[in-house]
């Protein structure tokens, strides 16, 4: 397996830190960086660059290789691979490394990496061997070998960056246990906490495409069970659900005993210390065994196969018209402008909970300008956009809109949609030189608190093997990403 190394680039495409590249020529990392920068410069959108770039050595064709790369905040991390390697190993390693940085520093950014370069360098050294074998990547084991930055700087970082990764409780240093003294690779020995807690978050993400008739073409919810574990000693946990059948296609953290799951659908595990993803699953409703399906009014009764479709909690009606008024004028006539109107209405189908942070985005296409819109709630709650980019965020409860003139994206934001309300956006715009070609799809993002599409319910969390009684908490949250065509 030849992961050749890791290179961290800043947003200008310069290398800040890179691993040793000891089994290659010194020119090699430079070539990789160059290839990525060239590809990025050539692409119209940075997201359109192939994630695996074939890199050819200019003078020596004996060194074929490819470069996997991902953007990560204001950084871009490259993972050159050579030989016939699985690019997924490259990407999985990149992801792991980003996770490690996240755990160590509470965030990943140019400033953080620069401030802690010595720790990052040591981490590189410990996680990746010179010929590309990933070594120790379990965060719990790494902490023994590479000391995290001091508590002080950690708190500083925590204040500025992501809070979730570090959390409140810091383990009390137990008796100094040797590295790898633990028999369990993902959990280090001798963890001690003053207060023992375990929080379980069930997050579900709806991915759906709805066609012009308002019928969901595809719609499925991907769930993730995230756990924040602050337990002393070596606890053995058993988590069971009242309705485990809603989880299909599960994948688990290595700590979960797979045999036990396949036998009686109990998740039995010795948890790693700290934050981790216990399991991921897909939710596809079954007609017979589901209560959630009745909670949504299905937007269209003609859905082709309701069996496989997670109902969308809202409905949108959109209309879009373009007229050509100024028209062609004489032989030289370049059509001067193409005014158009648009209107869209969102209505909530969910009757129990509000949807929050609804973002509706529409790409209006090149040369769109002179956008004027009114975002309103059908009964009261008026929000009005004033000018491009600075209009949004009017009131906390009212809707607003904005237009990103660089990306040509019209964004409509509704912070809170209470049950059974209607919201609408009316507006006009113009386009010069060419008829406007807006995308035929509205991208909708939303969140629902304390709700899951699958209605997955934790029955019991049993913790054995230790004497204490921990505090336990379970919480659900839904997000969605729906493409609504019109």
């Amino acid at each position: 397996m030849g992961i050749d190394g890791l290179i961290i680039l800043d947003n200008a495409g310069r290398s800040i830190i890179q691993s040793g590249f000891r089994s290659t020529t010194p020119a090699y990392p430079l070539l990789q960086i160059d290839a990525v920068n060239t590809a990025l410069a050539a692409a119209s959108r940075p997201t359109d660059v192939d994630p695996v770039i074939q890199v050819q050595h200019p003078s020596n064709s004996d060194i074929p290789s490819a470069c996997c790369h991902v953007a990560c905040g204001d950084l871009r991390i490259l993972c050159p691979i050579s030989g016939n390697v699985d690019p997924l190993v490259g990407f999985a390693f990149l992801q792991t490394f980003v996770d490690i940085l996240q755990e160590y520093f509470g965030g990943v950014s140019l400033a953080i990496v620069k401030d802690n370069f010595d720790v990052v360098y040591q981490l590189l050294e410990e996680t990746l061997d010179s010929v590309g074998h990933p070594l120790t990547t379990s965060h719990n084991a790494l902490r023994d070998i590479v000391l995290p930055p001091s508590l002080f700087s950690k708190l500083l970082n925590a204040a500025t960056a992501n809070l979730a990764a570090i959390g409140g409780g810091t383990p009390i240093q137990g008796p100094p246990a040797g590295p790898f003294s633990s028999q369990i690779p993902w959990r280090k020995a001798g963890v001690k906490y003053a207060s023992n807690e375990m929080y379980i978050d069930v997050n579900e993400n709806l991915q759906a495409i709805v066609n012009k008739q308002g019928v969901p073409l595809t719609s499925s919810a991907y769930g993730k069970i995230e756990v924040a574990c602050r337990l002393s000693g070596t606890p053995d946990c058993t988590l069971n659900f009242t309705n485990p059948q809603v989880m299909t296609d599960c994948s688990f953290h290595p700590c979960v005993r797979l045999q036990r799951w396949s036998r009686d659908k109990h998740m039995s595990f010795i948890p790693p210390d700290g934050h981790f993803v216990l399991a991921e699953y897909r939710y596809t409703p079954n007609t017979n065994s589901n209560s959630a399906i009745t909670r949504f009014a299905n937007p269209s009764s003609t859905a082709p196969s309701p069996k496989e479709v997670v109902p969308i909690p809202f409905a949108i009606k959109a209309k879009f018209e373009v007229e050509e008024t100024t028209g062609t004028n004489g032989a030289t006539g370049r059509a001067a402008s193409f005014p158009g109107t648009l209107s869209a209405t969102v209505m909530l189908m969910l009757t129990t909970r509000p949807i929050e942070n609804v973002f509706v985005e529409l790409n209006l296409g090149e040369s769109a300008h002179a956008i004027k819109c009114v975002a309103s709630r059908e009964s009261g709650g008026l929000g009005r956009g004033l000018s491009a980019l600075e209009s949004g965020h009017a009131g906390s409860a009212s809707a607003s809109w904005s237009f990103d003139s660089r990306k040509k994206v019209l964004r409509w934001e509704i912070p809170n949609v209470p049950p059974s309300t209607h919201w609408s956006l009316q507006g006009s715009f113009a386009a010069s030189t060419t008829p406007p070609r807006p995308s035929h799809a509205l991208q909708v993002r939303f969140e629902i608190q304390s709700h899951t599409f699958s209605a997955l319910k934790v029955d019991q969390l049993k913790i054995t093997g230790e004497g204490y009684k921990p505090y336990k908490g379970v919480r659900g949250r839904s997000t969605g990403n729906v493409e609504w065509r019109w």
Partner: protein
Amino acid sequence: MAQAGQDAKFFTRGKIEEFRADLHAADAKDKKFVKRKTVLKKIVANITMGNDMSPLFTDVVQSLGTPLLEIKKMVYLFLVSYGRSAKPEQINMVIPFFLQDVNDRNPLIRALAIRTMSYIPIPVVTDALTESLRHCLRDRDPYVRKTAAICVAKLYAADPRRAEKGGFVEMLRDLMLDANATVVANAVAALSEIGDRPDGVIFKLNLTAANKLLSALDESSEWGQIYIMDSLLRFVPERHSDAEIMAERIVVQLQHANSAVVLTTIKILLYLMNYMENRRLIEYLCKKMGPPLVALLSSGPEVQYVALRNILLIIQRRPAVLKNDVKVFFCKYNDPIYVKLAKLEIMYRLARAENCREVLAELQEYASEVDVDFVRKAVRSIGRLAIKVEPGADGCIQTLLELIEAGLAYVVQEAVIVIKDIFRRYPGKYEGIIPKLCEHLDSLDEPESKAAIVWIIGQFADRIDNADDLLEVLVDTFLEESVEVQLALLTATVKLFIYKSKSEKAKELVHKILKWATEEVDNPDLRDRGFMYWRMLAINPTLAGEIVLAEKPPITTDSDRMDRGALDQLLLHTGTLGSIYHKNPETFIRNAAGRALTDSPALNPNSRAVLVHLPRPQIPGPPGLAPTDSLIPGEDAAPAPPLPPRRNPAPQDSHTDDDDVGDDSDNDAETAQNRNDDPYSNLDSAFSTYLADEPKPMGAGAHRGRNDDDLLF
């Protein structure tokens, strides 16, 4: 440790002399070595930035005596960077420190020492390493053992004979039975690395060893699992049951959270299936593989891309895997273009009569998007869909006509190109739409589409009333056209003349164009073809007509499919670069170890029939020779081809219906097919093995027609 924030200033360029002075100053009264640590940190920062710090070698190495792990680490980082290029006397200075650290009480320091030594492939260091490594491989601490295992591979790279003589390979084999799973995994990784070297000791597994490795699987880290499972490719099952039991043991790994583990598991399952007999188990495994593949699509776009390229390969060999999941491949507007294109290709592969309508509606949606490249491929896919799925052809034609009506130039061009192929696939069915195509003659300005419409006019000159007028206009610019269009014009005019030999205009046209082709044009292909037509027409016009208008072989989507043997071989590389580029690694990576299925009593007969033996002869094969040429629905590859059969292999010439959308996916099929001259021979075998080997898809019986032998019906 210095405060965060201050560290950034270490990035300022440091001066060697200053560091040296600082290091010496640190010798005196340095409580807890704080000063020394700070200087070393600055030095390491400079190394990271690529500044040459090697002049400090002697000074830095002195710090190795400091009994502090943090300092040792930084010195070792320094050694790793400059040890290789150090002078002999400098290295000699370090050796005692190495030997001392190898026996340190702290296992971290022991491991650090041997790891650093293995990074410095200089004879003196290798000597020292050889001695210490032997102890470290038997160290009581697993961290040291696992580090030592990897070091063996490096020692082997530096000096293979010494490593073999020293018995290190045997010691690695012993480590495969270690109690600690990480040690086992690293031993396997080291053995694999050695085995992949052209001069390395071959690494093979027997049943007992393979089973032992499997029992370490559950406790390994994800990387360890990847190593271990990857090594199972070195196990050749001798009995069906061996393969079946092993598959049942690893199938739970499909539930792993790490995508690379999932894909490796799939690779091994696909490999083991070649050695299985139990049809129901194979079906069960295929069913199990689908969901994890689909789940990969909820990851980031990069992982999606890799997954999609692999799915494309897998569904060609095992269509049962994602048979009913075409919907998950529907593109979203915001998907990156590379994901969209990969999804488009898979949608086409998964299209069948049952889901044809959904797929078509989706493709139609894409054809209205903004991205030109994507729109063209979507339109092309509609055409391919029509050719592949007969019951859906009417709908496809209808959609294409609607798109032509809309009148966007690039859409029209693309539509004309695919409609030409549809005419050949369904002769006598859709010619009624020709007038509509001719209305848009003016908007066709690209060679490929222009050649397509010229072909259509020529081929159906007897049904197009004003064919002579149309051609006359087109011929006007003959001398400025590209070769592709010129060739098409030449043939079309000859066809027109044969259909309407009485027409004065046709006679005049054909005369004009033959004269141009033979006198004014430099391209030898064009000139040859001109002469050939001229002589044929001069000697026996009736016979010429029979030849030029001979019945054409029906076109199919055969060329979409890879050769089965090549596919089997590529699938052994599932999840590797080879599967992304759809090429065998030997072809683009020198020294890459080729992989091929190994024959054994358990190998199922269908896989054996297409077995590829290593080393596979490399037939470079000029592209013009690729037999797929004769599958090209372009010109008359009929019994007596009137055209020069080896046409200019310019890229724009190979207008098969799949070239662009499939990226390079078909190149491999071409090289694979080069081995025999008859382009159809292996298609038949591929088809028959498919029927014998696969769970028969629903209604397959009704679909065994000659034109319908795509893998997915």
